[in-house]
C-alpha cells in the first residue's frame, strides 16, 4: 500500500501570484513532490473550496471581505497554516494603499483617471466589500509558520515543506530568511 498523500491547499488573497509561481519553480522536482503530496483547493486545481487538509499555504494579505472569509475557511480546514511571502506576512506592496484613503484610490482609478468614460465607482453586489486597509493574514487568524521572501524561492518552499511532510518542525536556515 502506498502511503496516503499529504494534502496541501493554497490560495492567493491580495497577492500577485508570484509566490504561487515560485512554487512551480520546483520544475522537475514537482514530479517527486506529487508522489507525496496532493493539491486540494488551489488555483492550480479545479477544487474550489477548501476541504480538511494537512497544510495550507496563504499568499497575499487581506484586502476585502471575501479574503477574510477564505482565510477563515483555510484556518478551519488546515492543520498547519503557513503565511507565504511579504504580502501575507505584512501586507507587501498592496498595503501601500494604507497610506491613502480608500475612496481616493477608487476616485483616482474610476473617476479622475486618464481616458475614463462613464466615470463611476463600481459598486455591484457581486463585488466583495473592500476593507479600509490591507491587513497581514496574522491580523485575521492565527498562523503557524511564516515563509518570508518576495517571493520565497522554490528551494525555500521545499525547505519549509520537507520537515512538515515527515512530521517535523521546519526551521529555515538564516541564509533563506530574506525579504526581497
Amino acid at each position, binding site marked *: 500500500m502506498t502511503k496516503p498523500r499529504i494534502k496541501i491547499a493554497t*490560495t*492567493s*488573497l*491580495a*497577492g*500577485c*501570484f*508570484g*509566490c*504561487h509561481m*515560485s512554487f*512551480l*519553480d520546483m*520544475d*522537475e522536482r*514537482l*514530479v517527486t513532490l*506529487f508522489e507525496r503530496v496532493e*493539491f486540494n483547493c*488551489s*488555483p*492550480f*486545481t*479545479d*477544487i*474550489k473550496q*477548501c*476541504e480538511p487538509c494537512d497544510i495550507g499555504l496563504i499568499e*497575499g*494579505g487581506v*484586502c476585502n471581505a*471575501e*479574503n477574510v472569509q477564505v482565510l477563515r475557511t483555510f484556518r478551519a480546514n488546515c492543520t498547519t497554516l503557513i503565511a507565504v511571502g511579504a*504580502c501575507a506576512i505584512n501586507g*507587501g*506592496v*498592496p498595503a501601500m*494603499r494604507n*497610506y*491613502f484613503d480608500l475612496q*481616493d*484610490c*477608487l476616485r*483616482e*482609478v474610476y473617476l479622475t*483617471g*486618464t*481616458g475614463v*468614460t*462613464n*466615470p463611476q*465607482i463600481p459598486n*455591484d*453586489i*457581486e*463585488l*466583495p466589500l*473592500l476593507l479600509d486597509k490591507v491587513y497581514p493574514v496574522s491580523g485575521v487568524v492565527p498562523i503557524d509558520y511564516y515563509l518570508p521572501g*518576495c517571493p520565497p*524561492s522554490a528551494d525555500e518552499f521545499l525547505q519549509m515543506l520537507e520537515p512538515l511532510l515527515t512530521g517535523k518542525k521546519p526551521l529555515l536556515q538564516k541564509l533563506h530568511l530574506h525579504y526581497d
Partner: protein
Amino acid sequence: MEQSNPSPPTTRRIAIDPITRVEGHGKITLLLDADNHIQEARLHIVEFRGFEKFIQGRPYWEVPFFVQRLCGICPVSHQLAAAKAVDQLTGIRQLTPSATKLRRLLHFGQILQSHALHFFHLSSPDFLFGFGSNPAQRNIAGVLEKYPEIALKGVKLRKYGQQIIQAITGKRIHGTGTVPGGMNKPLSIAERDALLADITDILQWSQEALALNEHIHTAHPEHHHFATLPSNYLSMTGASGELEFYHGGLRARYADGNNIFDQFDYCDYQQILREEVRPWSYMKFPYLSALGIEQGWYRVGPLARINNCNMISTPLAEAARQRFKAFGQGKFVHHTLAYHWARMIEALHCAEAIDELLHDPEITGTELIAEKGQHQPQGIGVIEAPRGTLFHHYQINEEGLVTKANLMVSTTSNNQAMNESVRSVANQYLDGQEITEALLNHLEVAVRAYDPCLSCATHALGKMPLQVTLQDVNGKVIDQLTKGMSGEIHR
C-alpha cells in the same frame, strides 16, 4: 456557497467562483430564466488595488520594481514597460546595443515561460482530458501523471524561460535588471554558455508544443465554433509590420483585416483609446475611441499579434504562421481557442530569437548605460506582454516624484472579448440545459483561452474565482450553482 431558493423562481443566478487555473481573482455569473435560458452572462473582476494612487509621491526610479509586483506571472513585462517609460523620463532616446539586446532577451525569456506555463500548467488539462473530464484529475499533477512526456517538456520550457530571467535579473521572479537608460549587469560568458547548452532541446520542445496545439485545433472542428468572435485586433508591430514584442508602432485592424490605423506612435495612445467603467467589475472596458463603445472593443494577445503581423523574422515560426494563415484561408482567424495555437507559434519564435541573441557577441557586452538627457515631465512605455499590449504612463514633478500614473494592462483590453466569449459559450452550451460541472468548465475554458491575468487587470491582488448564479428579473438572487470541494455542483 449555497443560497436559499426563494419561490417562485423567475430567474436563477449561477456563479462560478473562483475561476481556477487562471491568474487573478474573478467570477462568472449567469442569469437564467425558469426554462434555463440565459438572460445574461458576465465575467466580474472582484479585486481592486489602486496602484495609480499609491504610486503617487514615490521616486520614479522605484517604479519598475513596485509595478512588477502587480503580477508574478509576467513581472518582467511590467518592469520593462515601466523601464521604457523611465528612459523617457530621464530623456534617454536610445539604449546601447548590448542593453537593448539584454532587455529583448529578458523579454523573450519571459514570454516563453509565461506561454509554457499558460498552456501546460493551466490549460492543457482541458485539451488532454476533455472539457468535461473528471475535475479531480484536471490539473498539472494529473497531466504529469498521465502524460509525463508532454508535461515534463512543458515544465522544462517554462524553466528555461525562468533561467534566462534569473541570469539577467538575479531572481526568477521580481528581480532587478533595468536602470534608467540601460541595464545594471552584463550577461557573463559563463551564464551565456550555460543557456546555450540547452537551446537545442528548447527549440525541439517548442516545435513539439506547437505541433500539439496545431493538431488539437485543426483536428477538432468543434473548437472552431467555441466562443468564436469576429473582432477588431490591436497589437504592436515592427517597422515592416513584423511580429514584435519589445518596440514598435501600434496597429489596429478590423475583423475583415482592413486597417483601422498602423504604425501609430504609442506615446499618443490617449488619442485612440478610452476606457469605460461599468458598475459590476473593477476591470475597465477599453475601446478604440474612433469606433465608439459599441463597435470599438478589440482583442489583444497572441491571436491579435499573429493575425495582425505580416511576417515573423525567424524561419520556423514564420513557417508556422503561414500554416496558420492557410488554415484561415488568408483571412483573420477569429477562433478563440486558436489563441493557444497562436501562443505556441510565439513560443517557438521566442526560442528561435533566444538562440539568435545568445549567438550574438554583443549580448555579453558591458556597455550598458546610455548618456542621460534632459529630464522630461512624462514617460510612456508600451510593450507586447505575453497577454497583449501593455501601456504604462507616468508623470513626475521637478523632484522626480510621481504625480500621476495610468496603466492599461493586457487583460483589461480583452475584458469585453472575455465577456462576449462567456456569453457565447453560455448560449451555445448551457442555454436550456440542466447545468452541470462539466458545462460550467466550458465557461472557464473560454476565459482561459485569453490567459487572463486578473491581478494585473485590477492592479489588484489575487485570484480569479468561478461561480455561476441566477437571479430574478429584479436582480434578486434565486439560485446559485457552485463547484464544490471536489468539483461537484452545489445548488
